[in-house]
């Protein structure tokens, strides 16, 4: 079981990295994609709120991951 102390936080780091990249790509696309003459980042509140939720969850998971790896090291 001592293996998990070393491997689990790293898997969490992998998930955070992928999530952060997904959020950045999402932001980039929402500023690029236009509908009704404007980027959807400006006209669509729903997508903005979804991306805000994504950012909140990523930051929360990053803090949890930092706490986990500091405790578990």
């Amino acid at each position, binding site marked *: 079981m*001592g*293996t998990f102390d*070393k*491997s689990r*936080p*790293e*898997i*969490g*780091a*992998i*998930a*955070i*990295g*992928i999530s*952060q*990249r997904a959020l950045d790509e999402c932001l980039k696309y929402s500023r690029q994609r236009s509908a009704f003459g404007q980027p959807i980042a400006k006209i669509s509140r729903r997508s903005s709120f979804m991306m805000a939720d994504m950012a909140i969850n990523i930051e929360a998971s990053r803090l949890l*991951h*930092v706490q986990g*790896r*500091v405790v578990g*090291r």
Partner: protein
Amino acid sequence: MSRRRRSTRDSSISAFPRNSRTRARYPRTCLISEELNYGCAGITNSIAANDLATLPLLIAGNEEQKTTYLGALMKKLTFCAFAITEPGAGSDRCGHEHHLSARGRRVHHQRHQAFYFERLGGGLVCDLRTSDKRLKHKAISCFVFPATTPASQSPDAWQAGSTRGRHRRDFFTKMCESPRVRWSVARARASSMRDGDL
């Protein structure tokens, strides 16, 4: 970034000073994993997936199990830096198989042909490999080994002191004018200089 982990209990995505303690190493491993996955999840997972199998052996395996399943690590076969020509060098780059194994006192590169071998400063040797000696696609792999590695001996014919080696050195110097080759070698040398393990 690839690192011999015979005496450590860390994963393969690691770049740590030799004398630092494991407790201080581990958060750096996680940070490196996060950044690498931000760049490309596929490549990083192909590296990190090995940890799932090797980590239990490194932590709880006995010497016999380590020798059986982690043979290359136990034989101290390692290289300090690795560089390859950048994307766009051609499809030949994708055909490279960077499989290293120790046969006797030599490093055997599967499906690779030696192109040039040079002793760098700081106890390092530089080994350039290609699958096409004519460099049609200009795809070159650059390995930097510590000179103390038992398997880091190359045949005399490849070294700079011999006639064939001088010929290849001239050719290599000429090829260094190519930005791709220059990038590859400079990247490998810079990586080795940053490596605190050396």
